[in-house]
């Protein structure tokens, strides 16, 4: 529920309760005040009529003043009461207040009733109800306009900022530039968010630089180790154990070198400007990559089928596309089964690489994540697919992975 709706809801619910209470209060107070007033009037009238009665003027004017002869005067000679009297012209019973008193003149007893018409409670109730309802309706209308104005003045900047925040990435390194608001709380929030994003961005940058620095710093020692091992390998008089140890050390340094190179490359992929784009013929580059791997596939008893539409071109960096294809094709060879097959299709702007293989055991959403290895193969760096993903992200190509019927399928949607 939106903030403004929630506030309005609270406001309206509470107003409604208040209206009911005030309504009831006013209703009863009015009835009480009016009846008090009428009773006072009746007492005065009763006094005047009584006075005239003793002066010999016997007023009888039903239904407002009734003077009736009675036989006996009861114990209570003065009483106030309510009654209903049928009024011919209105054709209904109307409420009246009356004062009944007993008088005696010349040995004759009289009962004097003085009446005054009393307001109908129902009428009062309905009148009040109408007034209150109209007021409440007006309140809703006013609230609607206030809300609209509030949304425009207060919440629009808030929503703009919200949108900015949703699209913000610490990778960009730029400040968020939140819109200032007239509301103090929102400005404080902006301030806090700006601080937070600055901090996150700085820390991200520091972490990135650290990774890059580490990778670069590692290159020299790795170079030295690699060269020393290579020189050792040239020795003629090595025994079997030393050869084994050397061989394993050499393999490991090669792997370290590969991981490091991949990390440096991944870091470089952060900036598109480093890679000059040109128009390239996709089928040609796919063909070349497939050619490059054909003997390796053959060696692994894999059959590669290609179906390449010839005229498709994309604008991008040729080396990056080659890396992307190299990684995908070499993956399809690596994660294949004995006597398996690889199908490479380039139709329209879609490149699909399918290969037989053991099922991917992890979460398919993690397929392109770093170091997410389906099988622990020694020479695999676990970064190939992360590089593929990053290249796709750079050029905003969509990339999908799914597996079906024993086939792994990767689809790249070029633009």
């Amino acid at each position, binding site marked *: 529920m939106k903030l403004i709706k929630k506030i309005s809801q609270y406001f309206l619910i509470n107003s409604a309760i208040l209206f009911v209470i005030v309504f009831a209060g006013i209703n009863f107070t009015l009835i009480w005040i009016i009846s008090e007033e009428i009773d006072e009037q009746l007492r005065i009238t009763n006094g005047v009529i009584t006075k005239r009665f003793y002066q010999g003027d016997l007023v009888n004017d039903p239904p407002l003043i009734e003077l009736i002869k009675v036989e006996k005067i009861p114990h209570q000679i003065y009483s106030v009461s309510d009654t209903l009297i049928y009024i011919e012209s209105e054709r209904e019973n109307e409420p009246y207040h009356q004062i009944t008193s007993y008088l005696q003149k010349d040995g004759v007893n009289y009962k004097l009733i003085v009446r005054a018409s009393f307001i109908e409670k129902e009428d009062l109730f309905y009148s009040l109800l109408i007034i209150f309802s109209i007021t409440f309706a007006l309140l809703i209308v006013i609230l609607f306009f206030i809300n609209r104005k509030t949304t425009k003045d207060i919440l629009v900047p808030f929503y703009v900022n919200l949108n900015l925040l949703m699209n913000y990435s610490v990778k960009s390194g730029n400040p968020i530039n939140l819109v200032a608001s007239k509301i103090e709380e929102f400005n404080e929030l902006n301030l806090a968010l700006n601080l937070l994003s600055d901090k996150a961005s700085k820390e991200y940058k520091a972490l990135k630089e650290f990774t890059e620095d580490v990778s670069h710093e590692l290159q020299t020692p790795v170079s030295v180790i690699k*060269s*020393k091992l*290579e020189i050792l390998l040239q020795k003629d008089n090595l025994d079997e154990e030393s050869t*084994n140890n050397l*061989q394993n050390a050499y393999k490991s340094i090669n792997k370290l070198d590969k991981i490091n190179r991949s990390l440096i490359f991944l870091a*470089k992929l952060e900036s598109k400007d480093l890679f000059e784009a040109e128009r390239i013929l996709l089928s040609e580059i796919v063909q070349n990559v497939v050619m490059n791997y054909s003997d*390796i596939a*053959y060696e692994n008893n894999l059959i590669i089928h290609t179906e390449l539409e010839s005229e498709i071109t994309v604008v991008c960096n040729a080396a990056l596309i080659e890396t992307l294809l190299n990684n995908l094709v070499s993956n399809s060879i690596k994660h294949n089964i004995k006597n398996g097959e690889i199908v490479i299709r380039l139709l329209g702007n879609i490149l699909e690489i399918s290969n037989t293989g053991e099922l991917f055991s992890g979460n398919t959403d993690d397929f392109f994540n770093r170091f997410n290895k389906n099988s622990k193969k020694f020479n695999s760096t676990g970064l190939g697919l992360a590089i593929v993903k990053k290249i796709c992200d750079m050029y905003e190509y969509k990339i999908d992975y799914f597996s079906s019927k024993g086939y792994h399928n990767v689809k790249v949607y070029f633009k």
Partner: protein
Amino acid sequence: MKILIIEDEFELAKSIVTFISKEGYVCDSIYNFTKAIENINLNTYDCAIVDIMLPDGSGLDAIKLLKKLQPKCGVIVISAKNSLDDKVNGLNLGADDYITKPFHLSELNARIKSVIRRRNFDGNNQIIFDKLKIDVDKREVTVLGKIIELTRREFDILLFFVSNKERVLTKESIIEHIWGNDSNTFDSLDFVYTHIKNVRKKLIDAGTKDYIISVYGIGYKFSVK
């Protein structure tokens, strides 16, 4: 042949010298920019291996001077950065080749040879090894005047072997040289074996000795012994 090595990492420079001096090269190792300039002014070289990142200057400036004073000297740029700028700048200044750290010494050795060959035998880029004659530009191999038909891969492998004759070549370095840097992530590196087997058979069939010796677990050695 005189080779200048400008590399600030002492141990790496030492490895390079150890590895390539077996080829009969005379090597001068220089560890900083100032010394490099001094040496370029004093001596003549056939090939220079230049690291771009030096503590007191840029290797690119050294290349500039080298190209001005000794235009016949071949230049191979070494960079730790794998940056396109370094590569483009280096090649624009007249460098012949570019190699990124860390590299296989055998790869560097093959490149030095290639650069020296190109610079010294104008139009007649040939290698003679025992009974083999390899015309690098024509990509033609002859044994005793008879042409041997080799595939592209087989030719490249043979050339790499001949460039690193009498040395142990690891499978990794061969694969990286032939298939490129991206390709060395396969678990089984045996696919290189098929090609080597074919080269071996074709050479023997043509009447040469069996030059290619398997070095168990490591790789191969191309030897006339």
